[in-house]
């Protein structure tokens, strides 16, 4: 060890490009999280329902998403679909794969949240003439989101970090950009130290904003 010499200047010169990469990382994390929530809610409702088909679709989705590596999902979306003539860009492949995994995990989180809401809340909503959809929209889901808010921010952190797998299909997110930039100068250690620090700042920023948002969103006691 001992005689490694750090060269930081080259990293700072490439910093704007790394920021671009970080932006792509946040971008894909936000979108995969957003669509993951939408699918997750639908699947969780399907899974808690008594309807056979939605229930089995939701169960198989969760089984595959939770029990196979995210890396494989990305390969399936990029190379696998490619074999069937569906060519996704690296960005789209990673977005689809992360959405798939996110919704799988979130389904279970949401299902747990839904189970903590007593049936009497549904009955009270229906007795006021609300449709099933209205009961979910105004009464059940708002309460569920409060209960699963912090597990949900975990999933968001996971999405930011796992998007680094995009490096393997040539996606220009933070890790991919860092990999490309370091290959020009071989200052590998310096580049990845800075990239790691950037991931850290991003996740801290997300956790901090989530905390601020929760105080604005959730006023009632629960």
């Amino acid at each position, binding site marked *: 060890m001992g005689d490694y010499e750090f060269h930081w200047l080259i990293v700072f010169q490439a910093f704007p490009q790394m920021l671009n990469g970080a932006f792509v990382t946040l971008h894909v994390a936000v979108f995969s999280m957003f669509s993951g929530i939408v699918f997750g809610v639908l699947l969780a409702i399907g899974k808690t329902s008594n309807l056979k088909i939605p229930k089995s679709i939701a169960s198989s989705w969760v089984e595959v998403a939770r029990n196979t590596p995210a890396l494989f999902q990305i390969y399936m979306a990029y190379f696998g679909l490619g074999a069937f003539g569906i060519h996704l860009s690296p960005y789209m492949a990673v977005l689809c794969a992360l959405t798939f995994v996110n919704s799988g995990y979130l389904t279970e989180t949401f299902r747990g949240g839904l189970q903590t809401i007593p049936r009497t809340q549904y*009955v009270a909503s229906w*007795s*006021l*003439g*609300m449709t099933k959809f209205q009961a979910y929209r*105004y*009464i059940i889901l708002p309460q569920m989101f409060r209960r699963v808010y912090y597990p949900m921010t975990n999933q968001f952190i996971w999405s930011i970090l796992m998007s680094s797998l995009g490096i393997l299909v040539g996606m220009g997110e933070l890790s991919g950009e860092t990999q490309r930039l370091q290959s020009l100068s071989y200052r590998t250690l310096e580049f990845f130290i800075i990239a790691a620090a950037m991931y850290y700042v991003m996740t801290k920023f997300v956790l901090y904003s989530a905390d601020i948002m929760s105080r604005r969103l959730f006023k*009632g*006691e629960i």
Partner: protein
Amino acid sequence: MIQIQGVHKSFGALKILKGIDLEVNKGEVVSIIGGSGSGKSTLLYCINGIEDIQKGRVLVDGVDVHDKSTNLNKLRQEIGMVFQQWNSFPHLTVLENVSLAPRVVLGKNKKEAQELAKHHLQHVGLGDKFDVFPTQMSGGQQQRLAIARTLAMNPNYMLLDEITSALDPELVGEVLDTLRLLRDEGMTMICVTHEMAFAKEVSDQIAFVEEGIIEEIGEAKQVIENPSNEKTKRFLSKVL
């Protein structure tokens, strides 16, 4: 008018209701009394179609509640329900609890719905609680909130499911006062209750239910003071 005709209800092999017949006219107050597990509450849930039935039928203003073509959401707008555990919506303020259904179900705009909610909250004595969350209130206040929430839908009927059973004794009075008010205004009500004195005071008719059957039904005072059925006598001697 609510007509219950030969209603049978079971959960799996467990028979809860074994042929219930009951008619409730407009403006009438009918109380249903009986021991725990006798099927009183289940009967209420069959009236607004929260529970399905296996045999018989329930007609509300001539509409068959359990017919597949009946729009239950529409029907339930006419039938308010108040619960033992009040079931207020904990994530909404008191005002939102009451104004939500008029807004999303009846399609009133926000301002109209809020005016309506304020009116009904004042009516039940919660005029100073608009922006409070339900969990910050006492059980009695939450139960009055639940009554206001139901009234804001302007129902023709009210189903009351043991609404004072979960309250501390000193809070029961305020809820019963609210019901007296409703009765004086001519609201049609079916109350499942353990408050015998109250049932005698406000009801036109009282029905005694045991093991899924109405054993005795009659004018309120007569059922409580001078029951003719042996089972009613035995039940009343235990609770009075």
